[in-house]
């Protein structure tokens, strides 16, 4: 589903974000990406939805090398990969429903059939009763759930989350994780970068640890510290 082959990414400042990284994530897997800040987690995530390109190596998403994707094809890739961020990235002037609909509208896919997808996504993240609220009227957890609804509304086969619980308290973080687990159970491949030791240690899923731009551990059922 997601394959990195000898990927190296060096920023113009000279910082080596990823150094000859190879890994494979299969369909329907749930993978934690851990490592200290600046280890290269966010860079790795940005390569997957072609928000960045590596200096060398290949990144395959659903058997397509996205590093060689022509510009025109990038939107198609991004429609297959739902993204979730620490800072939610919601539009403040839009309601919850509008934020979710926006994904479909921005690609011209919004119609009677897909309008139902919006209801289903809001239902899944339990925000149906808050659909007409604006982000500033919501708690952090609710905002993140809105972002998750937006990421899954198009029924993307891949969900990538970059520190989704970074701004959330303990209980809300667990709610969010449970939600991602459910979405994974429904068939999506989930890759989640996190610093949340407790969650990783409790879930016992596959853990990929990055340090100084290299994969230093790839362990099934692993803990945060190996």
């Amino acid at each position, binding site marked *: 589903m997601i394959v990195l082959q000898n990927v190296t990414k060096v920023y113009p400042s000279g910082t080596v974000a990823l150094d000859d990284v190879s890994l494979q994530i299969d369909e329907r897997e749930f993978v934690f990406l851990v490592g200290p800040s600046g280890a290269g987690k966010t860079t790795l995530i940005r390569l997957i939805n072609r928000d960045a390109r590596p200096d060398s190596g290949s990144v395959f998403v659903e058997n397509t090398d996205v590093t060689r994707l022509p510009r025109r094809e990038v939107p198609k890739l*991004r429609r297959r990969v739902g993204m979730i961020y620490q800072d939610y990235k919601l539009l403040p002037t839009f309601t919850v429903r509008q934020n979710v609909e926006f994904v479909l509208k921005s*690609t*011209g896919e*919004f119609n009677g059939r897909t309008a139902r997808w919006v209801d289903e996504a809001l239902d899944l993240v339990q925000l149906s009763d808050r659909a007409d609220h604006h982000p500033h009227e919501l708690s952090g957890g609710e905002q993140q759930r809105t972002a998750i609804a937006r990421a899954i509304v198009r029924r993307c086969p891949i969900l990538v989350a970059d520190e989704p619980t970074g701004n959330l308290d303990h209980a809300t973080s667990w709610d969010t994780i449970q939600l991602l687990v459910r979405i994974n159970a429904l068939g999506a491949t989930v890759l989640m970068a996190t610093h949340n030791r407790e969650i990783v240690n409790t879930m016992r899923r596959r853990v990929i640890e990055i340090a100084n731009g290299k994969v230093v551990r790839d362990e099934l059922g692993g803990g945060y510290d190996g």
Partner: protein
Amino acid sequence: MTAKLNVLRYVLGAAMLGLWRNRTMTLGAVVTTAVMLVTLAAFLAINDTLNEMVTALGRKSNLIAYVRDDARPSRVTEIMQDLEQRPGVGEVLFVTKEDALRIFRERFFDQRDVIDILQANPLPASVELRMDDPAVLPGLADELRGMTEVFESVAVPLDVVERLVSISNVSRAAGTAMIIALTAVALFVIANTIRIAVYARRQEIEIMKLVGATDWFVRGPFIIEGAFIGLVGATLAAVALVVIYLQLAPTITRIISFLPIATDVSFVRNLAVFIVLVGLVVGSIGSYVSVRRYLAV
């Protein structure tokens, strides 16, 4: 198909919303564009009028080359044929010695005795040119003066023509410079307006890109905003142009009725259409430049 229609509807809606949110800037850009285009129209009208005047005066003014009595007739014919091919030359006439004498007699009727006293006809034959473009007159005159074996002398009513030609040249140069400067200003103002619009919506743009919106979906609204500003500014300019024309044309025609001032309806209509097109193009290019620069998708 419906997807494309949906996108189109969104793009247009987003463009109108963007214009409304930035209405102060929008208004400023529209007014700047309108002023630029009215000035442009004024310069084009003035240039056109001056050109018409130069041409009209040129038609009235002749070049007269007096032919030597001993010039070979075949050589004169040859020169006349050559002159007819020259650009800017309208008509080439040959006035024989006899014609010249007749004309002289008609014109100076009371003094025909003076002529009768003479045994021979003292008047030379001449080649007369009626010009389409008086700008080529001076060069032509010098050339003919050089043919001393054929022509005795060459007379050109130069002063008026020369002055008009130089005024027309200066006005054309000044007009061109003004047009370039004004277009640059309008382009800059529209590009800047769009830049601010891009900045105001950078969050929306970032999210659009992350969820897989196409380039056209992201850029479209901005391009349309620029085109709209150009179009509205141009329409205002065109309306102003027509109003000014309706107010001024009768007065101008009355005051200087002897000159063909460019005040006919078709000229003004063409100018208005041209202005609207310029506005549209400048608006689209201005926003496209801005979007290219500030909206790396």
